[in-house]
């Protein structure tokens, strides 16, 4: 089951466009593209878990929070520059994912609920930490190292790395093993696929992606507080974009982010009225087209191809 080559071309095209946008001066457009890149990375993390292992990482926002606050603490308390503290933040998120490793033993909905509760616990712990470390509700200011252009290119690199990683996984033994575990867990185990090992790999990659998002986002706006690190809007977007676009494919989350971020950015001015519609949209999309847009389009193409083949009498 090889994924068609065009995917790689599309990925390259996206990376080139994002790099190009980085060259224009700081403006509304570059801010939009920064958040597009951010949500593409976050969606790919979600995709690796939900799309490939079937585990709903409802608490992914927790890793984002960890990433943000490690940068905040590193910069303010230890005087490390933000770009240097990003790897530490990613490492921190990975360490947290190791600590949460027992969660992977939970099945289905238990995992979703427990990981969500853990995310709530993470922000509670951060709010409980001494004010000198986290800046309290006021937050910390990173203005002395404010550099949106550098941060933009860092985010774009993160996007490139995550897209290529997921592309490689999709076409590798790992992707196949993960899909097998999702579709037929017992059969997969029987033919020697170690479920915990593969799920752990997806979980670690997911946490690294989310940690990077948090860290780079904190640096980009040069300001971190409880609300930038943990709010319902972030959580909603992180769930909605990949689900709309389609999980289990490389491009689904990208398409979801590209289509819906402009909508969500535009809708922000209508605040709650917009949220009413957006929340209902999530409910409707999950019900009507649970696999999302890209797989639905792929199905259309595949069935057309099959139809053509059957008409021309080609034996498959």
């Amino acid at each position, binding site marked *: 089951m090889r994924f068609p080559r065009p995917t790689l071309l599309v990925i390259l095209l996206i990376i080139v466009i994002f790099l190009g946008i980085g060259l224009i001066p700081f403006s509304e457009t570059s801010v939009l593209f920064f958040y597009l890149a951010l949500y593409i990375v976050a969606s790919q993390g979600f995709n690796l878990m939900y799309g490939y292992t079937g585990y709903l990482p409802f608490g992914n926002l927790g890793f984002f929070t960890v990433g943000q606050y490690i940068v905040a603490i590193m910069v303010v308390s230890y005087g490390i520059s933000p770009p240097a503290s990003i790897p530490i933040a990613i490492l921190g998120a990975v360490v947290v994912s190791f600590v949460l490793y027992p969660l992977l033993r939970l099945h289905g909905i238990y995992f979703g609920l427990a990981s969500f*509760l853990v995310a*709530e616990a993470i922000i509670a712990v951060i709010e409980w930490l001494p004010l000198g470390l986290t800046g309290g509700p006021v937050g910390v200011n990173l203005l002395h190292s404010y550099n949106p252009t550098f941060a933009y290119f860092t985010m774009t690199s993160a996007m490139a790395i995550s897209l290529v990683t997921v592309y490689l996984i999709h076409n590798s033994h790992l992707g196949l093993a993960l899909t097998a575990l999702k579709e037929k867990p017992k059969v997969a185990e029987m033919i020697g696929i170690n479920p915990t090992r593969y799920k752990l790999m997806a979980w670690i990659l997911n946490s690294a992606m989310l940690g990077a998002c948090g860290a780079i986002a904190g640096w980009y706006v040069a300001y971190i507080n409880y609300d930038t690190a943990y709010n319902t809007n972030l959580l909603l977007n992180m769930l909605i974009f990949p689900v709309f676009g389609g999980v289990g494919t490389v491009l689904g989350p990208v398409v979801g982010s590209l289509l819906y971020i402009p909508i969500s950015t535009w809708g922000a001015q209508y605040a709650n009225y917009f949220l009413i519609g957006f929340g209902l949209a999530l409910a409707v999309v999950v019900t009507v087209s649970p696999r999302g847009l890209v797989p639905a389009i792929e199905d259309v193409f595949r069935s057309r191809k099959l139809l053509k083949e059957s008409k021309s009498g080609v034996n498959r």
Partner: protein
Amino acid sequence: MDPTLLIETLIYGFLIGGFYAIVAFGASIIYGVMKIVNFAHGSFLVLGGYFAVFLSASYGLNPFESLLPTFAFLALIGVVLYTCTFVPRLMNKEDPESSSLLAFFGVATSLEAALFVLTGAGYSSIAYTPPIQSVTVFGIRIAFAWIAAFSVSAVTAAVLFLYLFRTRQGLHIRAIIDSVNEARASGIDVNRTSMIVFAIGLGLAGMGGAIVTLYGEVISPSISFQYTLIAFVVIVIGGLDDPVGAVLAGILVGLYQSIYVLLFPPELVSLALAVLLIASVSIRPEGILRRRRQEQ
């Protein structure tokens, strides 16, 4: 430590646990029968709370009198949602749990935003003065509202258990929880039972909101998440589809929470709940009552 304080903590934990049990009961039967994770449970609770506030402001009903109307109102909403929207379609998905968790997270967001718009983000409560402020037993003072709320919960639980274990419909509900296919094969109308269960579940959530006003606490859209989380911690510990386990787990969580807050920093209560949840599913994944069930 002062023993009176400890006893008081235990009593309060027990009393609030009764309230948790009722809220969780609704989520539990909805999950058990429909395999739907109603992540908007807390939002429906807040909606119920606002309805009770509305009844009090417009018709002068006190929180006790508004309990049944609130139940009826939310149950009606449940019937409408079931018959007119996507809810039944979610049940027939290959992975109804994750889909419904996502879908109802969307519903929760919408509902919360709608309540913000409708109420102007207002914090509302009912200014209700109970006939007596508090009851003192052996030198321990217990607020009347808490006793009242617990009594309401206890009566509701009793009625629900009678319904579940002594009526034909209750039998149908239990049969579906045990095995949908076998229930369907023996002629139980799964669709109709699901509708009733969904209505009761939402009704109980709404009644929970009315009970919150009885405590004299404020109702606001921002508290909905916290109740959703409590409901799910409780039902996961109770075994997800086991209403009896949910009631026991509700009281357990109430006790655990109040003892925790007495001894440790109260800011970290969600950490404590996460630890409890993970410990509980690791030790007793089938729920505290550990009813072994065969894999289908």
